[in-house]
């Protein structure tokens, strides 16, 4: 049974949803890949990213009328996603008792693969906020002010979180130290 969105009564409020559904479908079609990849970087896991994007989009959909009228719907959706990630991250801290085993890598001729793997693991070691700051700042290429708005903190906090995160990433990713970091796990 395919649902019809026209004339449904939701929570007692009549809603003609067809237009909203079409707009939303268009938005998802155009932005899903970007959001998904951002979510992958935030979570470090494709399945978790799938959950995260869906949860964020579902929330966005419920408030789509408001979001589409906002100046920057992308920022709005990203904010939802980052907040959702932080919420899930906090929850996961409570629920997951056993850390996943780390897969160690050794240096090989395909250094690029090795580097990216090291970066992935280094990102996973950052706090949720630090990771979000780095991803938004350096992958999404947002300004510090935009990142601050999404993370709902001050620009100064974004700077400090980014700085700490970068220090960690640089330590891990600098070739010699990074490999030593791997070997000492």
């Amino acid at each position, binding site marked *: 049974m395919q*649902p019809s*969105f026209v004339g449904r009564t939701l929570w007692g409020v009549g809603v003609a949803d067809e237009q909203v559904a079409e707009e*939303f479908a268009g938005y998802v079609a155009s932005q899903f890949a970007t959001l998904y990849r951002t979510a992958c*970087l935030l979570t470090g896991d494709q399945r978790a990213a799938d959950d995260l994007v869906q949860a964020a989009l579902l929330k966005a959909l419920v408030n789509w009328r408001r979001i589409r009228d906002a100046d920057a719907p992308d920022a709005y959706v990203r904010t939802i996603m980052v907040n959702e990630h932080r919420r899930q991250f906090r929850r996961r801290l*409570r629920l997951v008792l056993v850390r996943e085993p780390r897969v160690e890598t050794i240096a090989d001729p395909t250094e690029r693969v090795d580097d990216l793997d090291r*970066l992935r693991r280094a990102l996973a070691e950052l706090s949720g906020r630090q990771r979000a700051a780095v991803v938004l700042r350096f992958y999404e290429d947002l300004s510090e002010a935009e990142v601050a708005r999404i993370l709902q903190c001050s620009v100064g906090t974004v700077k400090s979180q980014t700085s700490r995160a970068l220090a960690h990433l640089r330590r891990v990713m*600098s070739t010699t130290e990074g490999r030593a970091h791997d070997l000492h796990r």
Partner: protein
Amino acid sequence: MTYTDDRLREDLGSLAAQFVPPEPPVQALLNRRVRARRKRHALLVAGTAAAVAGIVAGGIAMSGLGGEHSSKVTTSPARCSTQGYPLQPAPPKAAGAPRVRGSGPRSTAAPVFAAAADAIIATVPRPLAYICTTSRILLFTDPNNTNVRVAADAGRLRSGEYQRLLPGVPGPDVPGAMVRRLSNGVIIGNRTKLTTGNARVELLTPMYTVDLVAGTLRDGTTPLTVRQLMDWAERVYLRTFAPAITSAGVG
């Protein structure tokens, strides 16, 4: 070698490019939106004892959806379907009379049980009555009834999901992808048919998010008692969802 900002940008881009996005789940999202709004009081119940647990956990604000041996109490009869046990409409409420807990429509299979449930609800800490007032569904199954091998027999629980949710609790180890993500909600696919013993549960709405599946597993183990369900609800579910539930003023 210094790891520069530009190098980080490049590496993040390369790393992100390794993740191949799936097809945008537009229709699924739209379907879930409808269900999330329409079925905020949702609880999937299978089995009598499980329904007691469900009522204990979910109070009166739940919908029942299940097969034979699935006593249900519901506030949403239009969305429910049972085999052989049609729902009875609620008796008309006199004008001005307060709504009585347990007075909503219910399955014909449930009268005794509803009375018991009313008694149980009176003894349960109030917050527990809020559990199923989110958009999610708790799937409770009956530890003493074969009808309740729903999730296990559906064959789609991912290995390890139980353990992730409840460390130390044995769970089914059945590969598949139709039911998944138990730790933060199990998605059951469109019109999934859950065949169990002599009963069949057919989910009517496109996607359900189930937060907990409990019952007798295929190997005969019983992972959760009613008390454990309640403990779980109090320990995990409420801490996670209670703020949002309270602010929503549902109950």
